[in-house]
C-alpha cells in the first residue's frame, strides 16, 4: 500500500502522482516506441488500429463517460473525418492540414448535433444522434461527386511535401504521436475547470446550472470536442483502411464504439484504451480459439456474434466498471496483498431510480 503525503497543492494537479506512475508510463512509452522492431507487421497494424480506436474512444468517453451524453451516431463523426481526410489528401493537400480540417469539420458537425442535445436527454438524445447518424450515412452515399457514393473511394498515403508515409511503421508513429497528444489534451482538460463542468453536467444539470455552468455551451463544447477526436480518429482510420465506403460508418459502427468504452470502463481515460484493445484483440482471440473447438461449432457462422455477445453480457454482469474496474481491483489486491479481504469489492444492492427526472 502506498501512502502519499501531500505538502503542496501542485501535487494534486500533477499528471504523474508518484514515482510508480512515472516508471510504468515511461516503460509503456518505451515499448510503444520500440514496437515496430519488436512485433510482426501484422501486429503492428493491430497496434495502429488500437491507437486509432483509442482516439475515437477518448472522444466518446469525454461525451458519454464524463458529460453523460450518450451518442448513438458517433460513427458519423468518424465518417466526416475520414472523408475529409481522404478527399483532401487525394487532392494533394499536406496531411497535417487535412488532419486539422478533418478534426475541425467534425467538430463543426458535432456542434450542430449538439443542438438537439440541449433540449433532450437520455433515450431521446440517443435517438436524435441515431437519426443524425443515419442521415449522415445517407448523405455520404448520395453525395457521389465528392465521396464516390456507395462505390467508395480509395485513399492515398499521407504525404507531406513529397515525403510519403507509406510504410506501416511510419504511419504507426504518426498515429502514436496523435494519440499521445490527444490523450494529454483530454487529461489536461479533465483536471481543469472545463472538465469539472462536464462532470457536473453529468451528475446534476440543475445544480450545474446553479453553479453558473452554461449548460448549452458546455454540452455543445463536449459534443464538438468529442466529434473532433472522432474526426481525427476517422482521418487516421481512412489511411489505415485505405478504402472508404458509407456503410463503414453505419449504426453498427456507432454501437461498436459505444460498446468499446463501456467495456473499457465508463468514466475513465484508461477505459478508452482498454476498450480499444478489446475491440481489436477480441476477434483475433476468437479466431485463435476456433482452432480448439470442434468443427461443428468452430465453423458455425454465428460463433463470433455469440462470443462477442457473451463477453459483453459477462462484463456488464460481473464488472460494471469495465476492464478498468477489473484492473483496479487486481491492482488493489496486489497492493494490499496479505491483507486483502474477500467482499471488499462485493457489490452492494443498489436500486434503480428514474433517469427521466434528471
Amino acid at each position: 500500500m502506498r501512502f502519499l503525503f501531500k505538502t503542496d497543492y501542485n501535487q494534486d494537479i500533477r499528471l504523474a502522482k508518484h514515482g510508480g506512475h512515472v516508471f510504468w508510463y515511461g516503460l509503456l512509452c518505451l515499448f510503444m516506441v520500440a514496437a515496430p522492431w519488436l512485433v510482426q507487421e501484422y501486429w503492428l497494424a493491430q497496434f495502429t488500429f488500437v491507437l486509432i480506436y483509442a482516439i475515437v474512444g477518448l472522444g466518446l468517453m469525454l461525451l458519454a463517460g464524463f458529460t453523460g451524453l450518450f451518442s448513438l451516431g458517433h460513427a458519423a463523426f468518424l465518417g466526416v473525418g475520414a472523408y475529409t481526410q481522404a478527399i483532401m489528401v487525394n487532392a494533394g493537400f499536406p496531411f497535417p492540414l487535412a488532419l486539422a480540417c478533418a478534426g475541425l469539420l467534425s467538430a463543426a458537425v458535432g456542434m450542430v448535433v449538439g443542438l438537439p442535445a440541449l433540449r433532450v436527454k437520455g433515450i431521446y438524445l440517443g435517438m436524435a444522434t441515431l437519426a443524425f447518424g443515419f442521415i449522415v450515412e445517407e448523405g455520404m452515399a448520395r453525395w457521389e461527386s465528392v465521396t464516390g457514393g456507395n462505390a467508395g473511394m480509395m485513399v492515398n498515403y499521407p504525404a507531406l511535401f513529397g515525403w510519403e508515409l507509406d510504410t506501416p511503421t511510419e504511419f504507426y508513429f504518426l498515429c502514436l504521436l496523435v494519440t499521445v497528444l490527444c490523450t494529454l489534451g483530454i487529461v489536461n482538460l479533465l483536471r481543469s475547470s472545463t472538465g469539472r463542468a462536464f462532470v457536473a453536467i453529468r451528475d446534476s444539470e440543475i445544480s450545474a446550472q446553479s453553479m453558473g455552468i452554461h449548460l448549452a455551451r458546455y454540452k455543445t463544447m463536449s459534443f464538438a470536442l468529442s466529434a473532433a477526436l472522432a474526426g481525427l480518429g476517422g482521418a487516421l482510420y481512412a489511411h489505415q483502411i485505405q478504402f472508404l465506403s458509407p456503410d463503414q460508418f453505419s449504426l453498427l459502427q456507432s454501437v461498436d464504439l459505444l460498446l468499446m468504452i463501456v467495456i473499457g470502463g465508463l468514466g475513465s481515460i484508461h477505459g478508452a484504451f482498454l476498450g480499444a484493445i478489446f475491440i481489436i484483440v477480441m476477434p483475433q482471440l476468437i479466431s485463435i480459439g476456433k482452432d480448439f473447438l470442434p468443427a461443428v461449432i468452430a465453423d458455425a457462422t454465428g460463433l463470433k456474434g455469440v462470443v462477442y455477445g457473451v463477453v459483453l453480457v459477462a462484463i456488464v454482469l460481473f464488472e460494471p466498471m469495465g476492464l478498468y474496474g477489473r484492473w483496479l481491483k487486481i491492482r488493489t489486491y496486489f497492493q494490499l496483498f496479505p491483507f486483502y479481504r474477500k467482499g471488499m469489492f462485493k457489490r452492494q444492492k443498489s436500486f434503480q431510480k428514474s433517469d427521466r427526472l434528471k
Partner: protein
Amino acid sequence: MQLLQLLISGVAQGCIYGLIALGFVLIYKATETVSFAQGDLMMVGAFAGLATMTVLGFPFWLSVPAAIIAMGLFGVVLERVVIRPILGQPAFSIVMLTIGVGYVLRGLITMIPDIGTDTHTLPVPYAGEVIRLGALVLSAEQVVVIGVTVVLCAGLFAMFRYSKLGIAMQAASQNQLAAYYMGIPVKRINGLVWGLAAAVAAVAGLLLAPITFVHANMGFIGLKAFPAAVVGGFGSLPGAIVGGLIIGIVEALAGFYLPEGFKDIAPYIVVLFMLVLKPNGLFGEKLRKKV
C-alpha cells in the same frame, strides 16, 4: 385514389412499426430501459413459430399460441439469467446487456446448421390473400397486423392505466427502492415484464413473417420502430401506434413524391424535427425535476 392507396400502404407499414414499438414502450414504461434486443426477440419468435409449424408440425392455430407462450417463458428465463443479477444498476447497463443479448440471439440462430443462415417462409393460412375495397387493395397480412396491433395496444394500455400490476410496474421503474419498501415484488414483476415483452415480440415476429420472411437479420426493422416510439413519446403506448403510423405514412409519401433516397431517411428527419419541436414526443409526459 393513388394518394389513398399510398396512405393505406403507409398505414399498414406503420402498424408494423407501431407493433414493434409497442414492445419498446412496454419495456421502457415498466423498467425504464430501452431494449435493443427487442428486434432479435422478434426474430427468435418468428423462428419459434417456424419451428412449431414445420418441425413439430403443429397446425397454424396451435403453433401461434405455442410460439407466443414459449417466447414468454423464454423472456422470463432471460430475465432471470441475465437481467436479474444487475437489477437496480443504472438503466444504461441494462441497455448494454440487451445489445449483448441481441448479438447472442442472432449468433445462436445463425449457428443452427442449415436453418440459421437461410431465409424461410412461414406458412400462414391467409398468405397472399388480398382484400379489395373498390380500387384499393390491402393484403390479408396487413389487415391482420393492423387488427392485432390495435387490440394489443388497447390491452396493454388498460393494464398500465387501471390494473394494480400495471401501476406497480411503473412504480418499480420510477423508484425501485420505494417499490421494495411498498412490498412490490420488484424481481417477479421484472420477470413478468420481460416475459410479456418477449411475448409481444413473438406476436410481432409471427405477424411480420409472412411480409418480410423469417431470417436471422429480420430484427433490424426495429431500427425503424425506434423513430416511431420516439415520435409518439417513448413512454406512451398509444403514442407508439400513432408514431408508427406517422413514420409509415411519411415513408410511403416520401417514397412516392420525394427524390430517391428520402424514403429511407424520412423517418429520421421526422424524428429530428420532432425532437426539436416537441422533445418528448407527441404523447410523452412533460418531465421536469422539481427541486
